[in-house]
């Protein structure tokens, strides 16, 4: 399978965007309700400009989108992107579940020897 480098870049932006507590909070809020950028700014002690920057970063990572409503910009969370973020870890979970099941089996039959046990290459 070939990795699409555009996908890779997008995923990287995604994780970088989520690696900040304020940005994670903005995502959570904007998934539940409609918030304008100024309404979001009132939720934090940081400056309006800082919040605006956070929103821009989240927008670039496609975690949120902005839509004009009157004179305001409404920030909406993008549920699909969050799902993508979890997908990779789900795959690793499967690998480890299988591995631990094997671990348990071997642990319960440590004396059993396979035909090429101890075979050195």
């Amino acid at each position, binding site marked *: *399978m070939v*990795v699409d480098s555009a*996908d*890779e870049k997008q*995923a*990287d932006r*995604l*994780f970088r965007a*989520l*690696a900040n507590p304020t940005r*994670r909070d903005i995502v959570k809020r904007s998934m539940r309700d409609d918030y304008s950028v100024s309404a979001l700014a009132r939720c934090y002690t940081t400056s309006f400009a800082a919040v605006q920057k956070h929103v821009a970063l989240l927008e670039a990572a496609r975690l949120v989108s902005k839509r004009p409503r009157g004179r305001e910009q409404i920030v909406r969370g993008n549920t699909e992107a969050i799902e993508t*973020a*979890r997908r*990779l*870890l*789900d*795959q*690793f*979970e*499967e*690998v*480890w*579940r*299988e*591995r*631990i*099941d*094997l*671990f*348990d*089996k*071997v*642990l*319960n*039959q*440590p004396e*059993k020897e*396979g035909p090429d*046990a*101890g*075979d*050195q*290459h």
Partner: protein
Amino acid sequence: MPVTNIEKSPENLTMVVTSEFEAEPGRVWQMWADPRLLERWWGPPTWPATFVDHEFTVGGRASYFMTGPDGDKARGWWRFEAIEPTHRIEFADGFADQDGEPDDGMPTMAVRVSIGQDGASGSTTRMAIESRFDSIEDMEKLAEMGMEEGITLAIGQIDDLL
């Protein structure tokens, strides 16, 4: 099912797998310390692992390969960063080229293993394994390799171990 909990953190690129076993901690430890036991569970049944080296000391290296159903070999290496019998192992896990040398173009993963007796009952041992990834690209690459093996696993006959 020995796995009791899985904690995934997409924000920190980490995953912690906690499991419990009906065995003494010393025996759980041996599953990592003894390469002959280790190679019976590290690779999926259709991609069994063979550990060629297993220098189980701090700074020591392990090298292994996994053999697929068509005879393809996937090589990997470990570097042990911390070893505290019988409760802590930390190592870096990476891919190797066909000669078994670390492949710098491929991702590495940090693995932290904690083993401890469960206070409630003397014969139960708890093991927590934390995997930490450096970047999302690394995760993508690793997931791909895992998927390839997983698909083979699914279509192949899953016999009892060995």
